[in-house]
């Protein structure tokens, strides 16, 4: 498939700090590509270099076949950008802002059409200040769509939103994607990357530590399952961790056993008969598939936090 973005050996220093340290990847036409990582991983810097907002210390970026370091201006007509935590003119109505921004491009969509797409048509004569957090985020996405771009960049589009607003925003992003646009987004939410993105690059400390589909990332993990076991009787952990397929046993704050296994089928059956042999009764048992959270932990040894 055609690649719409190609990044080669991108490096960006801020004084002694190396924010981006040799990043290379490609984004294919028509996919939702996620860059996942904690705050300070270098996601925004990478995106802003691709968009032509920052100059890299070294490396090259191609967007839609154009070298953005040399002729960045050419690509601006064809991309849409939503910046992290950016606002718009407080004194103008949504219609006025979209008309103004639309005027910057050769091709532009009517404010009504863009607002209808993100469900803000009834706010067309309101100012940004009167919108809720979720509506504001939707509006910044609408503003990025004003030139009907082939490629849209969303920098942490759901940060700071409540779960319901996040889910509704995911719907809008899927909808935008269905209009045959390529979407590149950054996030530090595992579930967001997992549910929205076709491919995910996991970034930490300025480097891409892994890049694949969410499913593959999880399956390539050495321990893709966890078994959660609640039992009234006290069980010997040492013995439990020697059972077949079991890698590790920890007791969480509620007294539940969290058993990490690389073979859920085998471990589960041996575990059940072992517990039965101890004469204990099981209150609750569940098999939890690993998430990107676990992938991140395994790759970087760090927890990903909000």
């Amino acid at each position, binding site marked *: 498939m055609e690649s719409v973005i190609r990044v080669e050996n991108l490096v960006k220093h801020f004084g002694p700090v190396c924010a981006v340290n040799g990043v290379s990847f490609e984004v294919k036409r028509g996919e939702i590509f996620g860059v996942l990582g904690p705050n300070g991983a270098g996601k925004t810097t990478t995106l802003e270099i691709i*968009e032509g907002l920052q100059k890299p210390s070294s490396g090259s970026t191609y967007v839609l076949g154009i070298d953005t370091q040399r002729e960045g201006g050419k690509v601006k007509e064809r991309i849409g950008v939503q910046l992290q935590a*950016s606002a718009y*003119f407080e004194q*103008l109505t949504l219609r006025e802002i979209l008309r103004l921004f639309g005027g*910057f491009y050769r091709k532009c969509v009517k404010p009504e059409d863009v607002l209808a797409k993100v469900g803000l048509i009834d706010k067309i004569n309101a100012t940004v200040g009167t919108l809720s957090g979720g509506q504001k985020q939707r509006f910044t996405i609408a503003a990025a769509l004003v*030139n009907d771009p082939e490629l849209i960049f969303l920098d942490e589009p759901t940060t700071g939103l409540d779960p319901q607003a996040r889910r509704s925003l995911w719907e809008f992003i899927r909808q935008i994607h269905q209009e045959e646009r390529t979407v590149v987004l950054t996030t530090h939410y595992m579930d967001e990357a997992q549910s929205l993105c076709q491919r995910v690059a996991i970034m930490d400390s300025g480097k891409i530590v892994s890049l694949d589909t969410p499913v593959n990332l999880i399956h390539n993990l050495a321990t893709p399952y966890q078994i959660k076991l609640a039992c009234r009787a006290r069980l010997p952990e040492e013995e439990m961790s020697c059972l077949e397929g079991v890698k590790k046993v920890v007791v969480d704050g509620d007294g539940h056993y969290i058993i990490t296994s690389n073979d859920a089928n085998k471990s589960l059956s041996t575990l059940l008969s072992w517990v039965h042999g101890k004469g204990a009764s099981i209150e609750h048992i569940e098999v939890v598939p690993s998430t990107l959270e676990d992938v991140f932990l395994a790759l970087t040894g760090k927890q990903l936090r909000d």
Partner: protein
Amino acid sequence: MLFSLIVANMKIIVRNRQALFWALLFPLIFVVVFGLFKLDEPGKTTIAIVDRAQDPVSKAFISNLGSIELLTLEQDKSEQEARDALKAGTISFVLLIPRGLAEQVQNTSSPVAITIIYDESRMQSNQIILGVIRQFVDQTNMALQQAKPLIELKPEGIQTRNVRYFDFLLPGFVGMGVMMYSLTGMASIVALYRQQKIFKRILTTPLKVRSFFAAQIIAYLLLSIVQAAIILAAGVFLFHGHVYGNIFGIFILVIFANTIFLNLGFIIGALAKKVEAANGFSNAVSIPMMFFSGTFFSTEGLPGIMPDIVKYLPLTPLISAMRGISVDAQHFWAYPSELAILAAWIVVTSVLALKVFKFE
């Protein structure tokens, strides 16, 4: 494109209440306050007269004194009451006329003493009135001696127009208003747009950022003409102020000087990290200028070398040239040194603004 950007910028400015306050309300408050006070008419001074003589000479003296417009006479107080009133500050002078004034004037060759008592702590305002009374006494002496004055001072005013202090102030308010609005407005908007990443967002579009600034500056310049017109109109129509010179000269100066204030605002806004800091900085620059650049009084009244320093501030030449046009009906070109200072400021601030902008 540029046109719609200018219109959008004008909407943004006009809909911003804080900017409107600095642009219109702030200078209009001054226009109203100074318009309402009758600053040109000095207040009347009250004198209590204790007439112990009660004879024709003292009566004539008092009635002549009463004809001086500045003075109000009170004759119903005893000496003690008059002294108490002076201490309380309800009157400014007590005049004691001794017993048998007429007799003494006729019979004595040495002058007769009329005592005048006043509060020494209010020397400043009393000095004028004392002078007036002294002059009155001299005239009375000459009249009593039937002497012919040998020298007479003939006052001849060269001021042909009746220029009031308010007329003098009006161009100052225009200059101050333009400065406050452009400097504070531009500084806070640049800081705000940077803080809210609006500049960055514009950089992602095909629009050139310099077009964006050009539109913003044009919007400010156009609105500053409206602002100056409103301040002048309020002064002229509500408080009977006068603009004697060519009003277009004033508007040209407004645009000229506004370029400097917008540049300064831009520099402050670009250097300040936050909107609050930008507001603070712009006040720190504009408020001293408001007081020292001749808004309320001529800079010649400043002590020491101050007048020579403040004349190089951008607001001083603006106000002095505007005042020359407005009050003295001078031509725009009659102020080459003021125009030169303004031109120098335009060049310097433009270069600095461009430097700061590239640094961004």
